[in-house]
């Protein structure tokens, strides 16, 4: 069902855990599948993401996309991290089954939520960042024949 890359990230997820006193924490869920993802960011004064950790209550794809997303944003600037889309995460994993596309949205949204938290804590505004939704399930549509 999953690609080798997905399985690799699932078997050995990178950056699992928590960061004490993180610069930003974001938690998002998908009410439809019930899955939840949390991202911790440690951002330095140059707006560079020094460290990132995640926790996920979710399916194989959710675990793998969280892992890959943390890899993709680590060491990046806030603006660069903002540009990491779910598509980029999926491509980095060599793709996901159609029913699992929404799981990668969870990763994108969790990063945005953590960045939003960081911006709020520091009273700054990040260009192009909108207030994230807690529940991403409204994106989804029915399968068509």
């Amino acid at each position, binding site marked *: 069902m999953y690609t080798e890359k997905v399985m690799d990230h699932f*078997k050995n997820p990178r950056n699992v855990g928590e960061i004490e006193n993180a610069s930003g924490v974001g938690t998002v869920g998908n009410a439809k599948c019930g899955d939840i993802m949390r991202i911790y960011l440690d951002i330095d004064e140059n707006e560079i993401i020094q460290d990132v950790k995640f*926790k996920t209550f*979710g399916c*194989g794809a*959710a675990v793998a996309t969280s892992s890959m997303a943390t890899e993709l944003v680590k060491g990046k600037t806030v603006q660069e991290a903002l540009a990491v889309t779910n598509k980029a995460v999926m491509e980095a994993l060599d793709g996901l089954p159609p*029913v699992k596309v929404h799981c990668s949205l969870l990763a994108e949204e969790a990063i945005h939520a953590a960045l939003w938290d960081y911006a709020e804590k520091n009273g700054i505004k990040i260009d192009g960042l909108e207030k994230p939704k807690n529940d991403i399930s409204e994106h989804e549509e029915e399968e068509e024949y």
Partner: protein
Amino acid sequence: MDRKIYLDNAATTPVKPEVVEAMLPYFTERFGNPSSVYEFAAQNKSAVTAARETIAHALGAEPAEIYFTAGGTESDNWAIKETAEAYSQKGNHIITTKIEHHAVLHTCEYLEKHGYEVTYVNVDENGVVKLDELKKAIRPTTILISVMFANNEIGTIQPIKEIGEIAKENGILFHTDAVQAFGHVKIDVNEYHIDLLSASGHKINGPKGIGFLYIRKGLKLRSYIHGGAQERSRRAGTENVPAIVGFGKAVELAVATMDERMKKELELRDYLISHILAEVPYVRLNGHQKERLSNNANFSFQFIEGESLLIMLDMENICASSGSACTSGSLDPSHVLLAIGLPHEIAHGSLRLTLSDDITMDEIKYVIVKIKEIVEKLRSMSPLYEDFIKRQ
């Protein structure tokens, strides 16, 4: 473990070598259409008759009451839709339960769009249908009660005899989806007052793509699949002779080994259940403690999600499932687990292990160890567990 430990026998089972053996000649040599005039093919008719007799015998039914179908799903569709059609003069109300298989539920939903009314009776926290609610649901227009014999997810066995009696007293037809029970539990259609019963070959080490519907003699329901005159003009389509022969063989074996098999499965299952409940924190057993299939164990592990658990078990060579296999395309938590009262996030962390008598006690011990390890690992990654621990 080198060997794959297959604990998903409720999804499907391997075909027994004896069954394959019995089927083989019917592919290449005795391939003829049993409806033909020539001897060579007409012989196949007796092979079909023999399988029908074996099956009828296993149910206390008559051979003429057994109609072969392409599986449990078709049988369920046939039983429910054609009862609805045949008895629509009498009424348009059907009673079923909230924990039926989708083959029953989606069929009932289809009928609801076509002028029928359906009551979905609740079950208690063990998954047992609430008989008082069922009785209260009966109306003068009720034409059918459809309650599954045993549930495919949580294994709970229903009080079929009581339900059959209620149906009989009220002059209502009674259908039971026995796909999970047939060959695993003793069933007598007369003792239990069953009018219609669905079963499927591949759940009892028979082939896929074959099932039957038991239709009590005298019932008016007609064909669901229209066409040729096969199955006494009630189910059209060239007879699937190899699969029918294989199904017959599988039933023969299942009946002959039932007592011994149940005994062995019970021992394994009870060891598994008691150890998981004792050794893993924040876990619950789903389904009835006693009134359950001898091969079914279903747990909910708090704070973790089922699919991840399954993949990790797979990495350890353990095949299991979370909810029913045929719904795994869906993201919704199992309707059965919601019906027994589990909140969404707990329903999500469910694990179904369905054994066979092929499993050893050593394998069960290995499975217990692995489940403990994996649950621990997944919890360490879970934001829900983190929150829970912090709240302590």
